[in-house]
Protein backbone atom coordinates (compact mmCIF):
# COMPACT_ATOMS: atom_id res chain seq x y z
CA UNK A 1 0.00 0.00 0.00
CA UNK A 2 2.92 2.31 0.69
CA UNK A 3 4.22 1.48 -2.77
CA UNK A 4 0.95 2.57 -4.33
CA UNK A 5 1.07 5.79 -2.33
CA UNK A 6 4.65 6.42 -3.47
CA UNK A 7 3.69 5.87 -7.10
CA UNK A 8 0.74 8.25 -6.75
CA UNK A 9 3.00 10.85 -5.16
CA UNK A 10 5.53 10.56 -7.95
CA UNK A 11 2.86 10.83 -10.64
CA UNK A 12 1.53 13.99 -9.06
CA UNK A 13 5.09 15.32 -8.74
CA UNK A 14 5.52 14.88 -12.49
CA UNK A 15 2.24 16.63 -13.24
CA UNK A 16 3.07 19.52 -10.92
CA UNK A 17 6.48 19.80 -12.58
CA UNK A 18 4.71 20.22 -15.89
CA UNK A 19 2.89 23.30 -14.60
CA UNK A 20 6.13 24.70 -13.18
CA UNK A 21 7.80 24.36 -16.57
CA UNK A 22 4.86 25.58 -18.63
CA UNK A 23 3.34 28.15 -16.30
CA UNK A 24 2.70 31.29 -18.32
CA UNK A 25 2.97 33.74 -15.43
CA UNK A 26 5.35 33.86 -12.48
CA UNK A 27 2.48 33.15 -10.13
CA UNK A 28 1.67 29.89 -11.89
CA UNK A 29 5.24 28.74 -11.54
CA UNK A 30 5.36 29.78 -7.91
CA UNK A 31 2.13 27.96 -7.19
CA UNK A 32 3.52 24.84 -8.83
CA UNK A 33 6.77 25.12 -6.84
CA UNK A 34 4.81 25.48 -3.63
CA UNK A 35 2.65 22.47 -4.42
CA UNK A 36 5.73 20.52 -5.48
CA UNK A 37 7.28 21.28 -2.10
CA UNK A 38 4.23 20.00 -0.28
CA UNK A 39 4.24 16.82 -2.35
CA UNK A 40 7.96 16.35 -1.65
CA UNK A 41 7.27 16.58 2.07
CA UNK A 42 4.79 13.74 1.62
CA UNK A 43 7.24 11.79 -0.53
CA UNK A 44 9.97 11.93 2.09
CA UNK A 45 7.58 11.06 4.91
CA UNK A 46 6.09 8.09 3.05
CA UNK A 47 9.51 6.91 1.89
CA UNK A 48 10.68 6.94 5.49
CA UNK A 49 7.95 4.48 6.35
CA UNK A 50 8.57 2.55 3.16
CA UNK A 51 12.14 1.79 4.27
CA UNK A 52 11.21 1.79 7.95
CA UNK A 53 13.61 4.58 8.84
CA UNK A 54 11.64 7.31 10.59
CA UNK A 55 14.80 9.50 10.70
CA UNK A 56 13.56 10.85 7.41
CA UNK A 57 10.72 12.64 9.15
CA UNK A 58 13.17 15.31 10.28
CA UNK A 59 13.84 16.19 6.66
CA UNK A 60 10.14 16.39 5.91
CA UNK A 61 9.73 18.61 8.94
CA UNK A 62 12.45 20.96 7.69
CA UNK A 63 10.67 21.29 4.37
CA UNK A 64 7.32 21.85 6.01
CA UNK A 65 8.83 24.70 8.00
CA UNK A 66 11.10 26.29 5.45
CA UNK A 67 9.27 25.98 2.12
CA UNK A 68 7.13 28.92 3.13
CA UNK A 69 10.13 31.24 3.31
CA UNK A 70 11.07 30.64 -0.31
CA UNK A 71 7.55 31.40 -1.54
CA UNK A 72 7.37 34.60 0.48
CA UNK A 73 10.80 35.66 -0.74
CA UNK A 74 9.84 35.19 -4.40
CA UNK A 75 6.59 37.09 -3.90
CA UNK A 76 8.31 39.93 -2.13
CA UNK A 77 11.02 40.17 -4.72
CA UNK A 78 8.46 40.15 -7.50
CA UNK A 79 6.42 42.91 -5.92
CA UNK A 80 9.26 45.30 -5.20
CA UNK A 81 12.16 44.24 -7.32
CA UNK A 82 14.26 44.01 -4.20
CA UNK A 83 14.21 42.26 -0.89
CA UNK A 84 14.35 45.12 1.53
CA UNK A 85 11.44 47.41 1.91
CA UNK A 86 10.93 50.13 4.46
CA UNK A 87 8.62 49.93 7.37
CA UNK A 88 6.41 52.96 7.04
CA UNK A 89 3.45 50.59 7.12
CA UNK A 90 4.74 49.25 10.42
CA UNK A 91 2.53 51.78 12.19
CA UNK A 92 1.30 49.58 14.93
CA UNK A 93 -1.93 48.27 13.46
CA UNK A 94 -0.78 44.87 14.58
CA UNK A 95 1.96 45.64 16.99
CA UNK A 96 -0.04 47.78 19.41
Amino acid at each position, binding site marked *: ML*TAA*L*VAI*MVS*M*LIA*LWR*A*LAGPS*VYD*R*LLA*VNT*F*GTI*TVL*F*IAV*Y*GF*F*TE*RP*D*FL*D*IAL*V*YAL*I*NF*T*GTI*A*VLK*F*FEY*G*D*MGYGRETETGEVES
Partner: protein
Amino acid sequence: MDDAIINLGLLTMLAITALAVIRVQDLFAVAMLMGIFSLICAGFFVTLDAVDVAFTEAAVGAGISTLLVLSTLAITKREQSSRPRFRPVALLTVVLTGLLLVYATWDIHPYGDMSSPVHQHIGKRYLQESSEHTGIPNVVTSVLASYRGYDTMGELTVIFTAGVGVILLLGRSRKAAVNVDDEDDSRGTS
Protein backbone atom coordinates in the same frame (compact mmCIF):
# COMPACT_ATOMS: atom_id res chain seq x y z
CA MET B 1 12.23 -3.26 -8.28
CA ASP B 2 10.28 -0.57 -6.48
CA ASP B 3 13.52 1.25 -5.76
CA ALA B 4 14.47 1.16 -9.41
CA ILE B 5 11.14 2.68 -10.47
CA ILE B 6 11.39 5.42 -7.85
CA ASN B 7 14.98 6.27 -8.74
CA LEU B 8 14.18 6.30 -12.43
CA GLY B 9 11.24 8.62 -11.87
CA LEU B 10 13.25 11.00 -9.71
CA LEU B 11 16.19 11.08 -12.12
CA THR B 12 13.86 11.71 -15.07
CA MET B 13 12.35 14.68 -13.27
CA LEU B 14 15.84 15.89 -12.36
CA ALA B 15 16.91 15.77 -16.00
CA ILE B 16 13.75 17.54 -17.19
CA THR B 17 14.25 20.30 -14.63
CA ALA B 18 17.91 20.71 -15.51
CA LEU B 19 17.08 21.05 -19.22
CA ALA B 20 14.37 23.58 -18.40
CA VAL B 21 16.84 25.58 -16.29
CA ILE B 22 19.13 25.78 -19.30
CA ARG B 23 16.38 26.72 -21.73
CA VAL B 24 14.47 29.33 -19.72
CA GLN B 25 15.73 32.90 -20.23
CA ASP B 26 14.02 34.56 -17.27
CA LEU B 27 16.48 34.19 -14.40
CA PHE B 28 13.64 34.70 -11.99
CA ALA B 29 11.94 31.54 -13.24
CA VAL B 30 15.31 29.81 -13.12
CA ALA B 31 15.57 30.61 -9.41
CA MET B 32 12.23 28.91 -8.85
CA LEU B 33 13.13 25.92 -11.00
CA MET B 34 16.33 25.54 -9.01
CA GLY B 35 14.14 25.28 -5.95
CA ILE B 36 12.37 22.33 -7.57
CA PHE B 37 15.74 20.89 -8.58
CA SER B 38 16.88 20.94 -4.99
CA LEU B 39 13.63 19.36 -3.80
CA ILE B 40 14.09 16.46 -6.23
CA CYS B 41 17.75 16.17 -5.20
CA ALA B 42 16.75 15.87 -1.56
CA GLY B 43 14.24 13.17 -2.47
CA PHE B 44 16.95 11.35 -4.38
CA PHE B 45 19.39 11.54 -1.47
CA VAL B 46 16.67 10.15 0.76
CA THR B 47 16.30 7.14 -1.52
CA LEU B 48 20.09 6.66 -1.30
CA ASP B 49 19.85 6.55 2.52
CA ALA B 50 22.10 9.61 2.84
CA VAL B 51 20.09 11.23 5.59
CA ASP B 52 22.56 13.95 6.51
CA VAL B 53 23.15 15.00 2.91
CA ALA B 54 19.42 15.11 2.27
CA PHE B 55 19.03 17.17 5.40
CA THR B 56 21.62 19.67 4.22
CA GLU B 57 20.01 19.83 0.80
CA ALA B 58 16.64 20.41 2.43
CA ALA B 59 17.89 23.15 4.73
CA VAL B 60 20.01 24.92 2.14
CA GLY B 61 18.05 24.34 -1.05
CA ALA B 62 14.58 25.17 0.21
CA GLY B 63 15.42 28.31 2.11
CA ILE B 64 18.77 30.00 1.94
CA SER B 65 19.85 29.32 -1.61
CA THR B 66 16.61 30.65 -3.16
CA LEU B 67 16.86 33.69 -0.91
CA LEU B 68 20.46 34.44 -1.80
CA VAL B 69 19.90 33.89 -5.52
CA LEU B 70 16.92 36.22 -5.48
CA SER B 71 18.73 38.93 -3.57
CA THR B 72 21.60 38.64 -6.04
CA LEU B 73 19.10 39.08 -8.86
CA ALA B 74 17.82 42.18 -7.09
CA ILE B 75 21.29 43.69 -7.32
CA THR B 76 21.89 42.61 -10.90
CA LYS B 77 19.42 41.90 -13.71
CA ARG B 78 16.44 39.67 -14.16
CA GLU B 79 17.07 38.56 -17.72
CA GLN B 80 19.85 36.52 -19.13
CA SER B 81 21.92 39.00 -21.10
CA SER B 82 22.32 37.14 -24.35
CA ARG B 83 20.79 34.15 -25.98
CA PRO B 84 23.39 31.40 -26.19
CA ARG B 85 24.41 30.53 -29.74
CA PHE B 86 24.79 27.03 -31.04
CA ARG B 87 28.44 26.02 -30.75
CA PRO B 88 29.26 22.63 -32.30
CA VAL B 89 32.73 22.38 -30.72
CA ALA B 90 31.37 23.02 -27.25
CA LEU B 91 28.60 20.47 -27.80
CA LEU B 92 31.14 17.90 -28.98
CA THR B 93 33.35 18.52 -25.94
CA VAL B 94 30.47 18.20 -23.54
CA VAL B 95 29.16 15.02 -25.17
CA LEU B 96 32.64 13.45 -25.18
CA THR B 97 33.23 14.32 -21.53
CA GLY B 98 29.83 12.94 -20.65
CA LEU B 99 30.54 9.70 -22.48
CA LEU B 100 33.90 9.41 -20.70
CA LEU B 101 32.18 9.91 -17.35
CA VAL B 102 29.57 7.29 -18.20
CA TYR B 103 32.42 4.96 -19.21
CA ALA B 104 34.10 5.65 -15.89
CA THR B 105 31.00 4.66 -13.96
CA TRP B 106 31.41 1.08 -15.20
CA ASP B 107 34.34 0.75 -12.82
CA ILE B 108 32.29 1.82 -9.83
CA HIS B 109 31.15 -0.98 -7.61
CA PRO B 110 27.40 -1.44 -7.24
CA TYR B 111 25.65 0.54 -4.54
CA GLY B 112 26.13 -1.17 -1.20
CA ASP B 113 28.77 -3.64 -2.43
CA MET B 114 30.92 -4.77 0.50
CA SER B 115 33.96 -5.45 -1.70
CA SER B 116 34.22 -1.89 -2.98
CA PRO B 117 37.40 -0.04 -1.97
CA VAL B 118 35.50 2.40 0.22
CA HIS B 119 34.65 -0.36 2.63
CA GLN B 120 38.12 -1.94 2.62
CA HIS B 121 40.27 0.67 4.36
CA ILE B 122 39.34 2.98 7.16
CA GLY B 123 35.60 3.34 6.54
CA LYS B 124 34.89 0.03 8.21
CA ARG B 125 36.73 1.12 11.34
CA TYR B 126 34.76 4.34 11.53
CA LEU B 127 31.49 2.47 11.24
CA GLN B 128 32.41 -0.10 13.85
CA GLU B 129 34.41 1.85 16.41
CA SER B 130 33.41 5.49 16.22
CA SER B 131 30.54 4.98 18.61
CA GLU B 132 32.91 3.66 21.29
CA HIS B 133 35.56 6.29 20.63
CA THR B 134 33.31 9.32 20.71
CA GLY B 135 30.16 8.21 22.47
CA ILE B 136 28.10 9.57 19.59
CA PRO B 137 25.80 7.30 17.59
CA ASN B 138 25.70 9.42 14.42
CA VAL B 139 28.81 8.41 12.50
CA VAL B 140 28.55 11.35 10.10
CA THR B 141 28.77 13.82 12.94
CA SER B 142 31.69 12.10 14.61
CA VAL B 143 33.61 11.79 11.34
CA LEU B 144 32.99 15.40 10.39
CA ALA B 145 33.71 16.95 13.74
CA SER B 146 36.32 14.62 15.20
CA TYR B 147 38.12 12.38 12.72
CA ARG B 148 38.04 15.02 10.01
CA GLY B 149 38.22 17.98 12.34
CA TYR B 150 40.86 19.79 10.29
CA ASP B 151 38.73 19.63 7.15
CA THR B 152 35.72 21.03 8.93
CA MET B 153 37.83 23.79 10.39
CA GLY B 154 38.96 24.66 6.88
CA GLU B 155 35.38 24.64 5.62
CA LEU B 156 34.29 26.89 8.43
CA THR B 157 37.13 29.25 7.60
CA VAL B 158 35.92 29.30 3.99
CA ILE B 159 32.40 30.25 5.10
CA PHE B 160 33.78 32.91 7.41
CA THR B 161 35.98 34.26 4.64
CA ALA B 162 32.97 34.41 2.31
CA GLY B 163 31.13 36.40 4.95
CA VAL B 164 34.07 38.77 5.35
CA GLY B 165 34.26 39.13 1.59
CA VAL B 166 30.59 40.05 1.35
CA ILE B 167 31.03 42.58 4.15
CA LEU B 168 34.01 44.13 2.39
CA LEU B 169 32.28 44.24 -0.99
CA LEU B 170 28.80 45.35 0.00
CA GLY B 171 29.02 46.50 3.57
CA ARG B 172 30.87 49.76 3.31
CA SER B 173 30.62 51.37 -0.09
CA ARG B 174 26.91 51.53 -0.56
CA LYS B 175 27.17 54.79 -2.41
CA ALA B 176 29.39 53.32 -5.09
CA ALA B 177 26.99 50.42 -5.57
CA VAL B 178 24.06 52.82 -5.99
CA ASN B 179 25.99 54.73 -8.63
CA VAL B 180 26.59 51.53 -10.55
CA ASP B 181 22.86 50.82 -10.40
CA ASP B 182 22.05 54.23 -11.82
CA GLU B 183 24.45 53.76 -14.67
CA ASP B 184 22.83 50.46 -15.45
CA ASP B 185 19.39 52.02 -15.54
CA SER B 186 20.40 54.82 -17.82
CA ARG B 187 22.05 52.37 -20.17
CA GLY B 188 18.91 50.25 -20.16
CA THR B 189 16.56 53.08 -21.05
CA SER B 190 18.67 54.80 -23.64
